């Protein structure tokens, strides 16, 4: 879609677009190009010179046991975060949708965690499950369960998943609730008159109608789990124990800033660029479809 009526001149528009183009060039394109360039070299330990290795960094990464493990960790983490944030949100939205009064109040109360930063959410959950002072871990101890996410891989993963999914329940609830409210009452009532009970109506009519929203949320939540959960992992586990919660983004940070392995970190950035590109394309493909509905 284009405007029919436009203004003349080309100096003014160039000036108007300049700030955004400049910021993008300096802080987006140059660093991205730099990442691609650096990924082709291995710097010497003193950072004085670098040896060109072509795709050597990538070859090394893809054969590296730890990097492949990190891919798997990221996949497991993303699937779990997406499930743990979408299923409870859909359930609550379905229940709230059936209420005539009060759903607005519940929505206001459920919105809160969305505003909490992932890094702060990490501190809250770490406090609850702290091995020394945590309330939940203490009560688990009373029940005979010895909680220790500092040593146990599975418990560490469980904790970062729940802490990451927590704030997203609000987000997903808002979208599911809005989608459910826009399902035409007349359709549901017609089914009800035909004798379809609640679950029949839900799976037969409502669920197909909100599938676009669900698919959209699926993509958005995967993107969130990939790129925005750094704060949760850094505050709770720092990627441990033994890299059990080191997702790809965390590894870029720990190899690049902690380990100072610039070549490998840049190569990882480049691989992540492809992942983001892929996810963005999926997202836009889907948005295209939604426009045609």
């Amino acid at each position, binding site marked *: 879609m284009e405007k029919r009526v436009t203004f003349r001149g080309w100096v003014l*528009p160039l000036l108007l677009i300049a700030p955004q183009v400049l910021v993008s060039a300096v802080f987006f394109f140059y660093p991205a190009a730099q990442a691609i360039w650096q990924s082709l070299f291995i710097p010497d330990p003193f950072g004085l010179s670098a040896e060109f290795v072509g795709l050597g960094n990538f070859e090394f990464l893809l054969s590296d046991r730890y990097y492949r493990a990190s891919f798997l960790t990221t996949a497991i983490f993303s699937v779990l975060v997406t499930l743990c944030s979408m299923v409870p949100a859909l359930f609550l939205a379905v229940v709230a949708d059936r209420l005539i009064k009060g759903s607005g109040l519940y929505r206001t*109360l459920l919105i809160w965690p969305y505003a*909490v930063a*992932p890094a702060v959410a990490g501190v*809250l959950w770490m*406090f609850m499950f702290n091995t020394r002072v945590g309330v939940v871990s*203490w009560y688990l101890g009373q029940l005979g369960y010895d909680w220790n996410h500092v040593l146990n891989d599975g418990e560490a993963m469980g904790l970062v998943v729940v802490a990451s999914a927590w704030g997203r*329940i609000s987000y997903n609830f808002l979208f599911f609730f809005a989608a459910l409210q826009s399902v035409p009452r007349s359709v549901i009532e017609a089914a009800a008159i035909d004798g379809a009970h609640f679950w029949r109506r839900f799976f037969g009519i409502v669920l197909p109608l909100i599938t676009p929203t669900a698919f959209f949320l699926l993509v958005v939540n995967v993107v969130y789990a990939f790129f925005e959960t750094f704060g949760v992992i850094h505050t709770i586990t720092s990627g441990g124990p033994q890299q059990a919660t080191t997702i790809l983004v965390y590894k870029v940070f720990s190899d690049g800033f902690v380990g100072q392995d610039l070549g490998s970190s840049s190569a990882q950035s480049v691989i992540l660029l492809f992942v983001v590109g892929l996810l963005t394309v999926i997202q836009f493909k889907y948005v295209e479809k939604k426009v045609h509905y």
Partner: protein
Amino acid sequence: MAQSHGMVERRGAGLWLSHVIMICGVLLVFFPIWLAFVASTVTQPEIVRPPMPLLPGEHFWENYKAALFAGVNVPVLQMLFNSLVMALGIAVGKIVISLLSAFAIVYFRFPGRTTFFWMIFITLMLPVEVRIVPTFEVVAGFGMLNSYAGLIFPLIASATATFLFRQFFLTIPDELAEAARVDGAKPMRFFIDIVVPMSRTNIAALFVILFIYGWNQYLWPLLITTDPSMNTIVMGLNQMFPSGDDVAEWPVIMATSILAMVPPIFVVVSMQRLFVRGLVDSEK
């Protein structure tokens, strides 16, 4: 209306069950925040000898005063100020540069327009998390470490805001631009008198989302603010934990975590309508 509801909504026991489920859901979701609040009102010995109480204590002022004016590395008041500058800088900056570039793209035909459009589009795909090392080097090269400029500028380019404004500008009736042109109005007059006032709801909705985005940044401040007096509250909170075997000062830390949550929660709840609308719009 009431009658048509009766067909599909629950009544009696079913209705009560729905409310019970919602209340349980809200309580479960709230529990971590509640516990942090309780911890910020009790004393250190009450926390380190578990189980800690589940109802607030009497040390609210004491703990919050200690956090705000003394903190651990730096007074929390300073970190709150830094977060405010960063969040406002990012929100206002993104909105201004996006309004300008969207106006240029929609209302002008100029050389390189398509190229610039795609250039902005591609930035959608480059979250700061994937380009941290080189971006850090650029910012260090400009001497912007430990500065507000370094906190704000790398996060300020936003394709999302540009697209949102572009979408909206396309819906502004052509007659308005035509009338302005016939009257001999300069493009910038049209922009300031017509386009910006018409966009105010979108601007407000976007402001809520961008303010929270800026306030909740963690990785970027962590990398570029080595000086504690430049820490933002969200990253500074995690710096309050001692390294090694020292015991964390839990009441002060949890008071800080509450202080870190209050501004974004206040913004979201008080501007709920705008926020929900902005969220649904900007994710489309």
